[in-house]
């Protein structure tokens, strides 16, 4: 629309002029805030004196996070036996939690890469926090397979490093693909996040009052000066990273699903897994983004104008969409297993899933992931932050149950009833899992404290006056009459 308004004469501009109010774009930044206002209100969060609330939140969470190193040391000292898993339940909570955390990370990459490529400009105010969330979630995830190998000090066998036994990895194993996928994912996410941070670190450097901050942010900003000759390559690098992250994020959860799909266990051996896992990951990840961002808006009310009702609304819609895809996958899975396949073991696996020992997990999964997000059809609920937060908690829980249902129920009751077995998590597993939440949220609080939570330069760039053809002084006749349309295209 903007191009029409700018490049063409008379008639087509009339189209813009008579645009009915309901077709007008909702501004991405409310109250028409200035560039300086954006800089001031985002940067001040990391410049002001640490608030008491922050300490009140951080201290207990950091203490909970200490459970992770403590209990993992205990596990290393005593062996994997301190976890409750045993044959036939070899992959219990730890792989469940691995898939849970890595799935959460996917929303961050989706926001930063896929929404960038599809030119969804509303992503600008949430992408930084979502990418940070990705990194912390992948850190939590990577702990599990690392420690599940048992002899943690030999975890380096996972990587192709020449060793004294002249052994090499089996590159035909999906578990090894996982090693490559997850480590690539983490590295690329760190690079993407850091590249996005460089201009904002320069902003913090230029605003810094103390020598230490100037040095710290200055070193990290690499001497960024914002010249267009730099921006040119920067934008290209950013575009390429977005283009690379998109197939990467889809491949990571596909490969995670191959861990299951390439096995011959009934309930795992299905081709529906890759798209179903990816949709589930985005679904759960957006719920976690909202879980973190809604309280952040409460802490820092100035973010209201950048993370608007419209943003929350759009994220709720994505949760609704991906939740429905997940629901479709659940039903399709049931249809294939119970009706279509004609495979006795497949039939039993799903029958036992829904009615067997872990049926209440299955019911929780269905309720939280399929039924609960359907309330987002209502605009009133999407606009009620308390409701949105509550539904997101259900989704967070539901996605955990989904992974447990896929992993656990399948292992508990496979082919021969004589080799079936129950599983109860040990206290070590329970507290390690609680510890990862402490670690995740306390890392996020540190991020909020020291780095700009919102991508300052990108939010400025989506403002109407960031467009060079935006004329605020009404000197150019019809096209200046609707500056909003002219810029938010």
């Amino acid at each position, binding site marked *: 629309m903007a191009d029409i308004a700018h490049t063409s004469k008379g008639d087509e501009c009339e189209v813009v002029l008579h645009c009915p109010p309901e077709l007008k774009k909702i501004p991405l930044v409310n109250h028409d805030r200035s560039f300086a206002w954006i800089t001031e209100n985002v940067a001040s969060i990391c410049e002001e004196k640490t608030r008491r609330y922050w300490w009140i939140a951080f201290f207990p969470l950091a203490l909970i996070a200490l459970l992770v190193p403590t209990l993992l040391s205990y596990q290393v000292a005593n062996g994997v036996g301190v976890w409750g898993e045993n044959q036939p339940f070899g992959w219990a909570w730890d792989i469940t939690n691995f898939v849970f955390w890595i799935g959460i990370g996917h929303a961050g990459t989706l926001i930063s890469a896929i929404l960038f490529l599809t030119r969804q400009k509303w992503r600008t105010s949430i992408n930084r926090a979502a990418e940070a969330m990705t990194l912390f979630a992948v850190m939590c995830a990577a702990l599990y397979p690392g420690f599940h190998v048992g002899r943690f000090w030999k975890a380096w066998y996972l990587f192709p490093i020449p060793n004294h036994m002249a052994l090499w990895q089996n590159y035909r194993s999906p578990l090894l693909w996982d090693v490559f996928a997850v480590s690539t994912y983490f590295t*690329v996410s760190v690079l993407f996040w850091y590249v996005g941070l460089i201009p904002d670190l320069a902003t913090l450097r230029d605003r810094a009052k103390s020598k230490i901050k100037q040095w710290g942010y200055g070193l990290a900003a690499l001497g960024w000066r914002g010249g*267009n000759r730099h*921006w040119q390559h920067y934008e290209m690098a950013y575009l390429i990273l977005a283009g690379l992250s998109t197939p990467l994020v889809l491949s990571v959860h596909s490969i995670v699903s191959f861990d299951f799909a390439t096995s011959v266990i009934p309930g795992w051996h299905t081709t529906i897994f890759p798209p179903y896992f990816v949709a589930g990951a985005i679904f759960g990840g957006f719920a976690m983004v909202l879980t973190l961002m809604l309280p952040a808006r409460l802490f820092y009310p100035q973010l209201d104008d950048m993370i608007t009702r419209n943003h929350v609304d759009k994220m709720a819609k994505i949760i609704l969409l991906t939740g429905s895809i997940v629901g479709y996958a659940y039903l399709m899975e049931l249809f294939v297993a119970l009706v279509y396949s004609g495979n006795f073991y497949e039939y039993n696996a799903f029958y036992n899933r829904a009615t067997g020992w872990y049926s209440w997990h299955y019911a929780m999964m269905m309720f939280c992931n399929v039924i609960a997000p359907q309330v987002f059809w209502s605009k009133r609920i999407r606009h009620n932050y308390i409701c949105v937060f509550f539904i997101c908690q259900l989704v967070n829980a539901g996605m955990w149950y989904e992974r447990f249902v896929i992993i656990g129920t399948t292992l508990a009751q496979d082919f021969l009833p004589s080799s079936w077995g129950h599983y109860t998590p040990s206290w070590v597993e329970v507290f390690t899992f609680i510890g990862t939440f402490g670690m995740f949220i306390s890392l996020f609080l540190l991020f909020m404290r020291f780095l700009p939570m919102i991508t300052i330069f990108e939010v400025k760039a989506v403002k109407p006056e960031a467009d060079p053809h935006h004329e605020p002084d009404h000197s150019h006749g019809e096209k200046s009459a609707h500056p909003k349309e002219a810029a938010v295209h």
Partner: protein
Amino acid sequence: MAESFKRLHAIGAEFDTTSAIYHAAEKVRDAGYTNWDCHTPFPVHGMDKAMGMKKSWLSAFVFACGLTGFITGLLLVTVTSFGLYPTIVNGKPNDWTHGAGAMQFFFPVMYELTILFSAFGAVFGMIIRNGLPKFHHPLFNWSRFAKATDDKFFIIIESSDPMFSETKTKAFLDSLGGKHITPVFDHE
């Protein structure tokens, strides 16, 4: 005076809006300057054209890096699985002559390494091409320039430009509507 030891690095002018710097940039380009730059708090859409710049060649470099990653992955899996330590899984062929028939299993590793190398290429290519990291630059001597990462826009014409002349360039920037036109020196 100490001033005589300073070397003039550039002359800078400040602008208030995106459209002001955009139109000024077009005029600087048309005047024939080459060693100059527009410093903006965010990438300005269309500025490359206004400055007469060509497309960034970073993508070609990234392609080369991606290709390197792909070949690295290919060699990593084939040399180890066919040569150094042949692994027989699922009865799949594991030698050079027949192994190619079972390559699909090796694809994920090659795929991930292609992406990994490309990402490194994009980030480090950008950093190196931009001459970063650079922890000191004459522009940091100009106190108003700190606003370049906030809400002001700057055109900097460097003294190394063949068309540069202290008086004429100053007058030229003034005619473009630039404010706070300031000579920037190598050191304070």
